[in-house]
């Protein structure tokens, strides 16, 4: 019998309740769900959980240990902040799907077997899509369709991998899998990779997140990729391939971020960059590396959420997200500006902000394992992330050339949500050892605040700022232009449709040719038959009965003779 309550079910039940309520009551109940659930989750300890027997398998749909618990806490915080943010801007659809989505994420991190993981993995895909569709523009609807296709592709890959892994090894346990145990393990790896937005598999993220509702993007940024990071940390720690994948993830998106005009898309690219750090940490696989990856995931939810919230507030008030249309908003949205800058400082890993205490763990772990090239790439990415997320976002939205837009400050509920996030960023950044480091999966003996570390980090950041200033003043900096930049999505948004249209046309013509040919043959056969049997034809002519009778007798006679000879 279950002796502990699964938080996912609280979320699902809450979603049902929220769907039935309207107005203020709805917003309030939605907000209470993560709080109530958190009470239960805090009471959980490693070792709690359930096992059930289903379809002849022994499954463990609920398993609690330090790693899953950390993500459990994180998702409760994220859900609470997201729903608070949705107080004014949300509607029934967003609250319900937000709760379902958060519940699915919780289900996935507490899953102890691969079938349960698959169930929640697909639920994540479906529930999150409504946050994209919820914006109700043709653009976001199409984007959502691409999003769900890719998410379900990830789920199917997971399904295929699970089946192969199960048939080959007989195990459904969701624990260390490692790449060595055959095709199944590789497919599961790939499935995690799709949700984790690996290079060439990343496009769903940059495609859909900027198209979602302001609230939706805050939710989206918190769960899907973090569940994937959790899954990788659980099943593939220490896989060297991940180090290189992660390094690539940190480096390439920043180029796109520099030339992107939609500021939420800039954030989406920087999100891939941040996940890259986590993936590198998991690939290193040392205690420090895993701790760093997980800690960075924790912080990323907070500061990326904060940045998306500030941008969402801008979108909510101005109705546009293009850098070329924005600027000068610090005049009318000063509080949002401050929160955005806190987020920017955190993501850039300024000392005293949360990014600093977690990203440095990953970088140090890389250095300990002597991955020199990777280390250089990570340094480059650190500079780059400051450049686009730390400076570009606040600069083009709130400062830069004054767009003349004068709007109201963000609604209070949004400001409170942002304030909580901002406070958490600063608090974790300042006092990591009494907050974040306590709940990490491994014991922490890492000290982030050494003089060397603070100094080098300041140097790299300030000189990046200097570079930005110089480029901007000298006019070398690329201007914000309204445009679309090609990315991997070109392959399935332009190439694939073109190819399939071609194939379809070919199939249609060849089908028509086959039909025509077949019909011609049939018609000839018909004509031949008609020629023999049609009216006045040879076989249909009226014959004298007498001669027919005679011939019948003759035939019978011949038959008789043949029978007896």
């Amino acid at each position: 019998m279950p002796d502990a309550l699964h938080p996912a079910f609280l979320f699902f039940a809450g979603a049902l309740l929220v769907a039935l309520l309207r107005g203020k009551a709805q917003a309030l109940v939605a907000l209470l769900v993560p709080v109530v659930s958190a009470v239960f989750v805090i009471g959980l300890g490693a070792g709690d959980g359930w096992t059930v027997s289903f379809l002849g398998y022994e499954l463990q749909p609920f398993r609690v240990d330090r790693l899953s618990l950390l993500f459990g806490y994180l998702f409760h915080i994220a859900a609470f902040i997201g729903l608070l943010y949705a107080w004014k801007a949300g509607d029934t659809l967003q609250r319900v799907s937000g709760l379902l989505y958060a519940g699915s994420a919780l289900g996935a991190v507490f899953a102890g077997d691969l079938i349960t993981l698959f169930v929640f993995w697909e639920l994540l895909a479906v529930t999150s899509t409504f946050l994209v569709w919820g914006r109700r523009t043709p653009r976001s609807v199409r984007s959502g369709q691409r999003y769900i296709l890719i998410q379900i592709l990830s789920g199917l890959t997971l399904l295929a991998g699970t089946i192969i892994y199960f048939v080959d090894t007989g195990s459904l346990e969701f624990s260390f899998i490692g790449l060595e145990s055959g095709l199944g393990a590789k497919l599961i790896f790939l499935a995690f990779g799709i949700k984790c937005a690996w290079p060439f598999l990343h496009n769903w993220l940059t495609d859909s997140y900027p198209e979602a509702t302001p609230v939706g993007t805050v939710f989206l940024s918190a769960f899907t990729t973090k569940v994937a990071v959790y899954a990788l940390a659980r099943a593939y720690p220490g896989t060297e391939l991940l180090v290189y994948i992660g390094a690539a993830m940190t480096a390439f998106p920043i180029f796109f971020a520099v030339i992107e005009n939609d500021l939420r898309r800039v954030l989406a690219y920087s999100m891939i960059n941040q996940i890259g750090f986590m993936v590198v940490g998991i690939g290193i696989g040392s205690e420090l590396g895993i701790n760093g990856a997980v800690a960075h995931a924790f912080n990323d939810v907070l500061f990326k959420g904060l940045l998306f919230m500030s941008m969402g507030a801008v979108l909510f008030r101005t109705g546009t997200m293009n850098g070329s249309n924005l600027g000068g908003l610090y005049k009318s949205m000063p509080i949002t500006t401050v929160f955005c800058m806190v987020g920017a400082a955190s993501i850039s890993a300024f000392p005293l902000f949360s990014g600093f205490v977690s990203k440095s763990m990953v970088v140090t772990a890389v250095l300990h394992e002597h991955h020199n090239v990777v280390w250089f790439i990570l340094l480059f990415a650190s500079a780059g992330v400051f450049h686009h997320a730390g400076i570009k976002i606040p600069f083009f939205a709130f400062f830069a050339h004054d767009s003349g837009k004068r709007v109201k400050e963000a609604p209070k509920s949004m400001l409170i949500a942002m304030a909580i996030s901002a406070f958490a960023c600063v608090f974790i950044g300042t006092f990591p050892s009494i907050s974040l480091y306590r709940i990490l999966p491994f014991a922490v003996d890492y000290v982030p605040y050494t003089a060397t570390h603070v100094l080098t980090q300041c140097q790299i950041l300030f000189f990046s700022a200097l570079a930005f200033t110089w480029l901007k003043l000298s006019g070398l900096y690329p201007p914000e232009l309204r445009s679309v930049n090609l990315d991997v999505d070109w392959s399935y948004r332009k190439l694939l449709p073109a190819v399939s249209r071609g194939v379809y046309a070919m199939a249609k013509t060849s089908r028509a040719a086959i039909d025509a040919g077949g019909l011609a043959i049939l018609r000839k056969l018909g004509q031949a038959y008609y020629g023999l049997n049609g009216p006045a034809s040879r076989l249909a002519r009226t014959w004298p009965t007498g001669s027919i009778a005679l011939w019948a007798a003759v035939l019978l006679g011949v038959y008789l003779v043949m029978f007896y000879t």
Partner: protein
Amino acid sequence: MTSEFALIAAPIIPLAAALLVSLSGKIPNLRDSFSVLAGIILFGTVVSIVPDIMAGGRPAFTVVEVMPGLALGFLVEPLGMLFALVASGLWIVTTIYAIGYMRGHEESNQTRFFASFAVAIFASIGVAFASNLLTLFMFYELLTLSTYPLVTHQRTDEAMRAGRVYLGILFTTSICFLLFAVIWTWVITGTTDFTPGGILAGKAEGATVGVLLALFAFGTGKAALMPFHRWLPAAMVAPTPVSALLHAVAVVKAGVFTIMKIVVYIFGISFLASTGSNQWLIWVASATIVLASLVALTKDNLKARLAYSTVSQLSYIVLGAALANQAGVVGGSMHIAMHAFGKITLFFCAGAIYVAHHKTKVSEMNGIGRQMPITLFAFLIGSLSVIGLPPFGGSWSKWFITMGAYEAEQMIPFAILMVSSLLNVAYLLPIVFRGFFLAPKETSDDGHVGHVSDHDGPSPGIWKIGALREAPLFCVLPICMTAFGCLVLFFYASEMHKMLLPLGAP
């Protein structure tokens, strides 16, 4: 009530219902109550057999022995049990839905409609419980005949043409191939009884097995294996409850059920797998899965799209049978139930949209979700179940079929199953997001809230609450029931799996 008694009663109930419906045609309320009542009694009767089957019992009853080895008889085993449960259970909801639909639509000849309906269920129960090939064949043909008046219900030229295609393909295949195969089997083995482990092992070998399998597989035209699938889209001219009956409950499921039953009880899965004759069927089924999905993508008419989707999904079951291993057979059998619930929900929704708004094309569905949220939400659930996403029933059958494909080392069908799910997403979900998230097109006046085509006038019984324009209650209720069924089946799958497990025993 003993199982044997229930077994005898099961076919009699719908037959009696057909009689009562015909006699009470003058009083529609009485007539329709008979239909619903018979459905409930039948379902109860069928359910009463379940515990016996779960305990390993196999109640049997022979009607008459025509010749030695050729008898008319009934026997209940897990697969037939499942099919009978699905058919009788969904008959209730389809009847309720049909009442709402036919009245909402003011169709003529409703008595003939409901009577044929009952006869079709009688035939389905006969197919489900047939103890040998001969009985199965007879009820199979009766099913074709009894559904013909349903397909041609509208009596328009188009309906009559579709009826000709329907009868033509189904009769030609069954008489040319299926009957021939039945007789051949009888000649080879001296019996046509469904026997666990099969009857052909040791009696047939080599090419004979392959040819026989081909005759059975293509002879069962109701399974809509390509290239004998055209009758199914053609039959789309029928009223929606008929489409639901054809595509989810009786006809197509009788087809795939026949193939599954023949593979399990005539060939025997270990014998079939050992001969390797199943290879070609695996390929035909895989090709049908993917081609039908691709065709479905190009269809704008909602019912045509669903029809091709059905063709594709049926081949999942045929593929499960063709894999001839435990996971494949159990998964394929589960898919009979899972797909039935998912697809019937989709058809009900298509019909509800038609009754309430006279819309048949996917491209006209923009914004319909604001007027029919319940229907469209059910459509979403049905779609997810058909795609095979948790927490809906379809995910488990897909799990087992895929596992069967891997265990049979059929990697290309394995991949095709995955691709097909993606195609399902691509052709089913657009209806949902168009309905919910895109604004109605403003160019056409017909598309306006609740405004139906002039010549029809507003249909009676449409719900109008605020902006809502739902179909009549009798339509919406069954939709909710079947959609909920999709969810229940996800959790009930374990029981179903346990019941079906003996099928895979070597």
